[in-house]
């Protein structure tokens, strides 16, 4: 479903801040894979997701989504393949627009925008039913402005928007990091359900090792812009945080630095 081959990205080339963010990273996902991504700050987790989304062009390598080579495509042309949820709840929806207008924009992801009416009566019913599944009371607030919602509500709405038209690949970029623990758990639960129900292929970046272990069928760890650990199947099911730390120490070939990921 996703084939990343040997991608490189360097920021601020030729300056003192030169940063090799992606160093020959390769990753292949099968349809239905739900992969959690962990790694310390600056390991390249978000950079990898941004490379897939096409926020900026990569320096070399190739990215193929569901058989389509998207390496040279701009961000908005890749959107047809991708559902995205960002770390910042404000980034996923338009604050001054109604809940239903946001959903209507998302329903048309990857389609050509025309002069047809931006939202139809039939859609409204669909949105009502879908919002009901979130169990946040949003189904009765279709015409409320999104700016009035809480961070958790906006993140749940963004999840719904990202999956309204089934994406080839769902990208979750630390989408619960900005939420309080209870809300984070709820949003994670919704993510799990939506991914399972729609049999989505997904990449979820997280700072929380426990979440990384308990969700998904495969776990990868990034360091210095490449994958240093890749655990799937039975091995992942029996994984503990301690195992993970031990494996990381071996894989990284050095003792654990004072890294924020440990505090997750």
């Amino acid at each position, binding site marked *: 479903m996703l084939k990343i081959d040997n991608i490189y990205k360097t920021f601020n080339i030729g300056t003192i801040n030169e940063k090799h963010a992606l160093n020959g990273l390769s990753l292949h996902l099968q349809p239905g894979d739900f992969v959690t991504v962990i790694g310390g700050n600056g390991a390249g987790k978000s950079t990898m997701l941004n490379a897939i989304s096409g926020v900026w062009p990569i320096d070399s390598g190739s990215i193929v989504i569901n058989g389509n080579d998207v390496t040279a495509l701009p961000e908005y042309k890749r959107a047809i393949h991708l559902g995205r949820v960002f770390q910042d709840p404000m980034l996923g929806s338009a604050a*001054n627009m109604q809940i239903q207008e946001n959903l209507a924009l998302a329903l048309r992801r990857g389609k050509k*925008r025309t002069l047809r009416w931006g939202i139809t009566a039939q859609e409204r019913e669909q949105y009502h039913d879908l919002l009901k599944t979130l169990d946040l009371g949003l189904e009765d607030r279709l015409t409320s402005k999104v700016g009035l919602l809480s961070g958790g509500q906006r993140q749940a709405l963004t999840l719904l*928007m990202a999956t309204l038209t089934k994406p080839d690949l769902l990208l979750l970029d630390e989408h619960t990091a900005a939420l309080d623990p209870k809300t984070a758990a709820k949003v994670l639960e919704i993510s799990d359900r939506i991914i399972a129900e729609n049999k989505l292929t997904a990449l979820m970046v997280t700072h929380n090792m426990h979440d990384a272990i308990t969700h998904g069928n495969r776990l990868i760890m990034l360091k210095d812009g490449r994958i240093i650990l890749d655990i799937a199947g039975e091995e992942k099911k029996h994984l503990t945080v301690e195992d993970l730390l031990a494996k990381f120490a071996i894989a990284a070939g050095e003792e654990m630095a004072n890294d924020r990921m440990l505090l997750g």
Partner: protein
Amino acid sequence: MLNIILGAIALGSLWAVMTMGVYITYRLLDIADLSVEGSLVTGAAVGAVCITGGMNPWLATIMALLAGMVCGLATGLLHTKLRIPPLLAGILTMIALYSINLRIMGRANITLLHVDSVFTPLQNLPFMAGLEAQGIMTKNVAILICGLLICFVVSAFLYWFFGTEIGCSIRATGNNQQMVRALGINTDTMILLGLMLSNGLVAMSGALIAQNQSYADVQMGTGSIVIGLASVIIGEVLFGSTKSFKRTLLAMTLGAITYRIIIALVLKAGMPANDLKLFTAITVAICLALPQIKSWGRKLKGGHN
């Protein structure tokens, strides 16, 4: 006095078209587009040249609209393709248009005194004679009818347009470009469309204003952005609603008219015309500062922000 108010309302209804254009960039796209200072004059210039050249005044007004859209395109390309910040892109277009407007007109001003305008046919309506007998200036009545009619048509068009898929995408672009790109929309195209529509309306307004005052002048755009902003803000504060877009569009028309009435009244009260722009600037500054002033007020009362 009635004639002064009537004249103010009539003039306001023409500026309302410009106000809706400013609203599109300032509120929907979240861009303070200064190119309108130039495109207003471009509209007046194109309209005046076309009318004196013998073109039907309505057609000439449409030509002005198209010319304005080209101005908006210029600002949009400077911003989206060359990545110049929108404020600077607008200023560049504004300055460039000063020379272009002089080229279009061939001189600093063109008089429209002895030609028909879009308002002329309306002055011969059957009831006009009766109004004239009561001492009402029929020219103002004709402009008012025409202006309100145009406001209605433009409002209806904008209501429809911003409800379509493309219109929704433009509004979303003004909110959150990151999201809009993630949903597969080219934000550059949306910004271009918004700026073209906005400047088209501004230029159309310029052509109408020129026909109203019977001349087009290369200086007539100076300060128009501030007048536009004042009208937007007055409209929002006095007549606006965050719920209904219909209501917002109506508020823009009423805001422009209210601004003209205020100006007419302060002039009548004896303020020198030369101080008008200072007065307008102060009014807009106060309106824009209202949220901050309110929060100071709360602080003084010992409350929290």
